[in-house]
């Protein structure tokens, strides 16, 4: 690879657990009106890992799919990034275990946390690293969320949305002008506390008093989330497109974080873009957090909604709040 060559996505994969939780069950447990979850979120069900399924097992499954799709052997991978906040352990990094399990013996590995934006950030970090150091060759970026173990299923603020899952992409050299053209990331930390998981953090270690206080569960201010998305997600898209002198009309396909079907409809409506230029799977699989962008990208690739030369924007929003977007000329 020369220093003028691009870094693009060569293969993708996904893993979604088979077990599901129905809206009816969640509505009953949360004291919600029948049909209210579907109306509010567009989500029909959520997928939950069985006891034997782990963040590493889900990562390996989708990682192997991505390698196969890219026709790359594990030994050719020079970098593994696992985008997650629900790894098997607090430490070591999940990526290290994934490296061992898939046999990517030549890869450097680390985890990255930017919540639901993290897969986009992971793509950016990987492509930047590969452009700085072409000897990396290929990178495996995995977004994985095993969040069902952190959900209070009687809390309607979080129980209605979240699912488990994993998605992956293999990055490698592509001709100049293709691949990741630009990325952007910004943060609005004024709402740092709006979505959080305190238990297990160094300020709230897993001790009996913190568990008694319920700190092992997600806490989410849903109203603040939608305000953040409505206000800042369009800015993220405009910022990355400005870097390549393009507008939303120039974009062939949008990959959004799959938080809420209604939000995606709203964002496309605000940008005056047809829904055919995006993919929605949150209705079928729920909000898979860190995995969401990767899984949506995989589904779009498999459905052949993205073709060579398309300008693709991948954009996420996550707790923190972090906002990111990447513009990719598809190869």
């Amino acid at each position: 690879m020369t220093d003028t060559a691009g870094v693009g996505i060569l293969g993708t994969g996904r893993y979604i657990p088979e077990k599901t939780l129905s809206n009816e069950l969640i509505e009953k447990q949360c004291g919600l009106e029948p049909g209210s979850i579907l109306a509010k979120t567009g989500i029909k069900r959520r997928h939950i890992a069985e006891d034997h399924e782990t963040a590493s097992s889900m990562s390996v499954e989708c990682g192997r799919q991505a390698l196969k799709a890219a026709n790359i052997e594990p030994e050719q991978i020079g970098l593994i990034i696992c985008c997650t906040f629900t790894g098997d352990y607090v430490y070591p990094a999940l990526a290290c275990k994934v490296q061992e399990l898939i046999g990517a013996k030549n890869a450097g590995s680390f985890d990255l946390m930017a919540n639901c934006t993290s897969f986009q950030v992971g793509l950016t970090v990987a492509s930047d690293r590969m452009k700085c150091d072409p000897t990396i060759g290929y990178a495996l970026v995995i977004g994985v969320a095993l969040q069902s173990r952190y959900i209070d299923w009687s809390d309607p603020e979080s129980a209605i949305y979240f699912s488990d899952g994993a998605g992956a992409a293999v990055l490698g050299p592509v001709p100049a002008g293709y691949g990741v053209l630009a990325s952007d990331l910004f943060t609005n930390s004024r709402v740092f506390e709006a979505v959080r998981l305190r238990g297990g953090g160094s300020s709230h270690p897993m001790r009996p008093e913190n568990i008694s206080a319920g700190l092992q569960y997600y806490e989410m201010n849903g109203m603040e989330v939608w305000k953040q998305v409505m206000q800042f997600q369009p800015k993220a898209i405009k910022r990355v497109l400005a870097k390549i002198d393009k507008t939303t009309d120039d974009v062939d396909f949008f990959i959004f974080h799959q938080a809420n079907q209604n939000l995606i409809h709203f964002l496309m409506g605000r940008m005056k873009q047809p829904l055919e230029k995006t993919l929605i799977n949150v209705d079928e699989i729920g909000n898979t957090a860190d995995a969401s962008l990767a899984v949506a990208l995989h589904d779009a690739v498999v459905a052949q909604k993205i073709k060579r030369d398309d300008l693709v924007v991948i954009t996420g929003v996550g707790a923190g709040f972090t906002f990111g977007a990447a513009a990719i000329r598809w190869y």
Partner: protein
Amino acid sequence: MMQHQEQKLKEVLARIFNVQPEMITDDASPDTIENWDSLRHMNLVLALEEEFGVEFTDDQVVEILSYKLIKIVFKEHGVEFVQ
């Protein structure tokens, strides 16, 4: 014309929030209209842009959280109402 605009605005809000237009008073906000939730607010933004031919800024989208604030923001877009 300005009275017509006022009536049109109330009708849009009433339709989106599924309430009688008489309920859309100067004090109307999520505090006074139970149906003014996040989902319907998104629908309201898109409906106001379409009905009045304006394009809110990204910041204005989350600022228009009351009837009065909608009118103030509309004024910035040249849409006038009776004072």
